[in-house]
């Protein structure tokens, strides 16, 4: 402190960083910019009107949907399928994932099965699905369930594989029951991986709405998109796709909330 301040300088700050802060408005801004550019592109003819209509046209189609009262019918049909299909697929996926991660037999028997069945395109199996589950709600929910099940399984067992076993040993040393160890040590430890798996499987579930509603669906956002596609009614197509995007945004937001609460212990 007896040094002249001229020769001294603060120690360079080297820490911090590598941890992005939320910038709430940027996301909205990006969307608005894209939509404005798209609209401008369409109006000036840079974007061919042939297949990609202007956002405003899609909005008109959407308004039509609202006016006719069909929006709610489509949405409620799809949401119901989504919620049932995704939640049962995710639940089963976590259960099977845990089994694979913990039992030698389950791992040896199921991992190859998962690897072999996951890559089979649901669309190719539509005829079989119809035979198995009929053309009612069963087949539609099953399609979504199938699609969400596999990514959840993989995310879950990889997440558990990646846990440091020393915490498990601690649990064993305190005589915790097997079930307690799974519930209180393994599942919370794998939770970040499971939630990231949910992000993926929820998006896959929404994608599969279209495949699911290929099976004799009268209402549903997927059915609406399919019809628009076969009629080349691109304005309706974009309106339908935008609805799926909104669902995706909503789900992503919900998972973010869940992460913020459940993973608040992360530094």
């Amino acid at each position: 402190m007896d040094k002249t301040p001229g020769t001294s300088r603060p120690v360079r700050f080297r820490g911090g960083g590598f941890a992005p802060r939320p910038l709430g408005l940027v996301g909205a801004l990006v969307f608005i910019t894209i939509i404005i550019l798209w609209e401008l592109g369409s109006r000036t003819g840079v974007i061919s009107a042939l297949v990609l209509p202007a956002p405003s046209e899609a909005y008109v189609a959407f308004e039509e949907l609202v006016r006719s009262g069909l929006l709610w019918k489509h949405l409620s049909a799809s949401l119901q399928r989504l919620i049932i299909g995704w939640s049962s697929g995710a639940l089963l996926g976590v259960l099977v994932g845990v089994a694979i991660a913990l039992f030698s037999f389950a791992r040896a028997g199921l991992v190859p099965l998962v690897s072999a069945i996951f890559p089979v395109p649901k669309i190719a199996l539509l005829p079989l699905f119809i035979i198995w589950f009929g053309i009612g709600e069963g087949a539609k929910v099953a399609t979504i369930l199938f699609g969400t099940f596999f990514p959840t399984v993989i995310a879950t067992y990889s997440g558990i594989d990646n846990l440091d076993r020393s915490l498990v040993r601690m649990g064993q040393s305190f005589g915790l029951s097997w079930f307690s160890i799974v519930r209180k040590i393994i599942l919370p430890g794998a939770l970040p991986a499971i939630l990231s798996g949910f992000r993926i499987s929820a998006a896959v579930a929404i994608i599969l709405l279209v495949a699911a509603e290929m099976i004799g669906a009268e209402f549903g956002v997927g059915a609406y998109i399919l019809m628009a596609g076969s009629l080349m009614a691109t304005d309706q197509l974009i309106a339908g796709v935008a609805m799926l995007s909104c669902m995706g945004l909503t789900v992503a937001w919900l998972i973010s909330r869940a992460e913020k609460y459940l993973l608040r212990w992360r530094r």
Partner: protein
Amino acid sequence: SAADKVKLGALRFTSHSGGFVAFENGYFKDAGLDVEFVYFQAATPMAVAIASGDIDFGVTSITGGLINLAGKGAIKVIGGALHEEKGIDGSAILASTKAFADGLTSPDKLKGRSLGITQTGSSFHYMAAQVAKKEGFATSDIKMKPLQKVGAIIGALKSGQVDSMIIVPHIAKPLSKAGKAKIIGWINDYAPYQVTTIFTSTKNASGKKDLVKRFVGAYSKGIADFNRVMLNQKADMAATDAMVKQIHKYVYASRPYAKAAPSIKNGAMRISKNASLDLTDVKKQLDWFQSEGLVSKSITIDQLVDSSFVETY
């Protein structure tokens, strides 16, 4: 001068044989056209590919999608292909065995029954509407089940998930023979009906009239050969076999000839002579699609069809 390069979109179906035969017999080359086939797995991408200029010609049924693309000024129908007429095998109406036992024995009983179709606005939808109209009930009295794919519809029919469907003869006949379904009627009873058409981009139709003319001419020669041999197969077995062999290069190519030949033979349907177009029926179809609200009311028949290339009636 060098031959003009032309890309022809095709599905690997017997109904596209006109083009295959014309190519095999060198009619395109004779017309100064260097044709390259581009294969598709579905009709919609083919229509879009014409709109985007990736291919020049295509053959497929008139659907809401096709009309809408025409309405946007992207494509034009320039000729006819498959045409349903009385007396020649065409698409059949099938009932599931369950529904048949339950009394669905003829098309007039379709009222209140379910019918598997690929999509709203598809040719199946249109045919069903024609049946309903003639039999005297509303289209909405038939429960349409959109199942996207022919395979899915067949599966649903076999397992009794839908009561009925409409399908090409080479699928209908074996199903019926095997007792998996019952033929209860024929679409040609509701004819005439222009099933498929030849179409090209608006740019070609207005800017390369000569090329389009030559293409249609060569294609017509292929149609003539096909009709002569395949619609009268018993007359000249040797010629039939020769043509089936030609077609087998394109259709069912992944199956051995012995297995493929019956399907190809069964699948032979009349293709319009000289690619002539049943404009009356096309107008009727356009009206129907518009009345159902599936396509824009502002689309006119002139936007859909350029009738300067083939004979129309």
